[in-house]
C-alpha cells in the first residue's frame, strides 16, 4: 500500500510518527504552515518556522524514506493582525522558490473576520501572481458554513483556477458546494471531535472519489496521523479493492499536488 499524507504538521510531531508512517506505507507528507498554539509577535519567528518546514523537516523525513513537502502562508488564526500578516506575506516569494515548497497554505477563514478576509484575499493574489496551488482552511465548528460560503464567493470573484484549489476540512454540510464549484475537497480526520474515518467513507460513497483527498489531523492537539489508516481499513472493509484504495489515498493527492512540478510522486497502478 502506498499512501500520501497531504496535510501533516511534522513540526508538532515526534520522529516516531515518521518511523511508524514509513512502516505503514506513507511515501510522502505535505506540511502546511499553521498556528503554533499561540499568537506569534515577530516576523522573524515566522521566517524561522518557514525555514524549519522547508529546510529541516525534509531531512528528518528522509531518514525514514519519506519525502517531505510544505506550504507557506500566514495562517487564518493569526491573520487578524494586519501589519504582522503583511510583513509575513511579503516574505513568501523567497520561500516559494525553495525546492520542496509546493504552494500557499493554510489560508482562509478562522472566525470569518474582515481582517482575515483581507489577508486571505492578498494571499490569493500572490498565489495568482506566482501561479501557485492553494490550500484553504475552513473554520471547524459553528463558523464552518459561513466561512465556506465566504471562501467560495472570494474564489469566484478572483476567478481562481478551480483545479488549483484545495478546500480543506469539508464535512457533510459543506462538501457539495465545494465540489459543485469545481474545487478539490479535503476531509480531515480526528480521533474524537470532528470528522471520523467512518463518516469520511460515507462521503466518498455519496460524492465519489474524483476530487476528494483524505488527510489526518496531525498537529499539537488531540490528533493522530493513523486515523488515515483507520479510514483506509474502513474503506476496504466496505468492499473497495486495492486500486480503488490507492486512487483515494495516494493517487488523488499525487494528482492535485503534482500540478506543481516540484512534487514528483506520480499516481500508481497495481492492478
Amino acid at each position, binding site marked *: 500500500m502506498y499512501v500520501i499524507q497531504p496535510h501533516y504538521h511534522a513540526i508538532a510531531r515526534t520522529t516516531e510518527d515518521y518511523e511508524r508512517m514509513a512502516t505503514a506505507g506513507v511515501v510522502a507528507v505535505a506540511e502546511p504552515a499553521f498556528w503554533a498554539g499561540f499568537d506569534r509577535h515577530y516576523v522573524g519567528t515566522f521566517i524561522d518556522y518557514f525555514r524549519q518546514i522547508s529546510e529541516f523537516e525534509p531531512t528528518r523525513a528522509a531518514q525514514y524514506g519519506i519525502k517531505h513537502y510544505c506550504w507557506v502562508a500566514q495562517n487564518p488564526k493569526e491573520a487578524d493582525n494586519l501589519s504582522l500578516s503583511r510583513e509575513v506575506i511579503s516574505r513568501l516569494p523567497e520561500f516559494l522558490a525553495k525546492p520542496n515548497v509546493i504552494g500557499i497554505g493554510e489560508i482562509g477563514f478562522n472566525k470569518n473576520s474582515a481582517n482575515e478576509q483581507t489577508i486571505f484575499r492578498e494571499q490569493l493574489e500572490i498565489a495568482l501572481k506566482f501561479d501557485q496551488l492553494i490550500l484553504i482552511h475552513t473554520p471547524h*465548528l459553528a463558523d464552518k458554513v459561513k466561512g465556506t460560503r465566504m471562501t467560495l464567493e472570494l474564489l469566484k470573484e478572483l476567478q481562481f483556477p478551480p483545479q488549483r484549489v484545495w478546500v480543506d476540512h469539508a464535512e457533510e454540510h459543506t462538501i457539495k458546494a465545494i465540489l459543485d464549484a469545481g474545487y478539490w475537497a479535503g476531509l480531515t480526520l480526528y480521533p474524537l*471531535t*470532528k470528522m*471520523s474515518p*467512518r*463518516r469520511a467513507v*460515507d462521503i466518498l*460513497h455519496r460524492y465519489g472519489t474524483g476530487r476528494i483527498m483524505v488527510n489526518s489531523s496531525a498537529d499539537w492537539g488531540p490528533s493522530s496521523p493513523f486515523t488515515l489508516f483507520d479510514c483506509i481499513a474502513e474503506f476496504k472493509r466496505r468492499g473497495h479493492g486495492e486500486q480503488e484504495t490507492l486512487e483515494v489515498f495516494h493517487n488523488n493527492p499525487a494528482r492535485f499536488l503534482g500540478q506543481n512540478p516540484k512534487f514528483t510522486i506520480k499516481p500508481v497502478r497495481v492492478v
Partner: protein
Amino acid sequence: MQTFTQTLDYEFLQARYLLLEVAGILDRLDEAAIHDGGGVREDVRLARIKQAIGQIDAPANQPDRVERILQIFSEP
C-alpha cells in the same frame, strides 16, 4: 466536582461527535436498505436503537439515562 459550565465545556465536542456518529449509522442503514431495493427494514435491534435514542432526551429527575438505555438492550 466540576461545575455545570466546566462539564459542558469539556463534553460539548464529544457529545457533538457522538451524535454525528449515531446519525451516520442511521444514514448507513437507510442507504443500505434503499440499495437492497426496499424501505427501512423491521428489525428488533433497530427498534431498540431508536427506543434508546428517545431516552437520551427524555426528561429525567436523576442522571440514570445510561442505566435506562442498558435496560432497553437487556433480556426481560
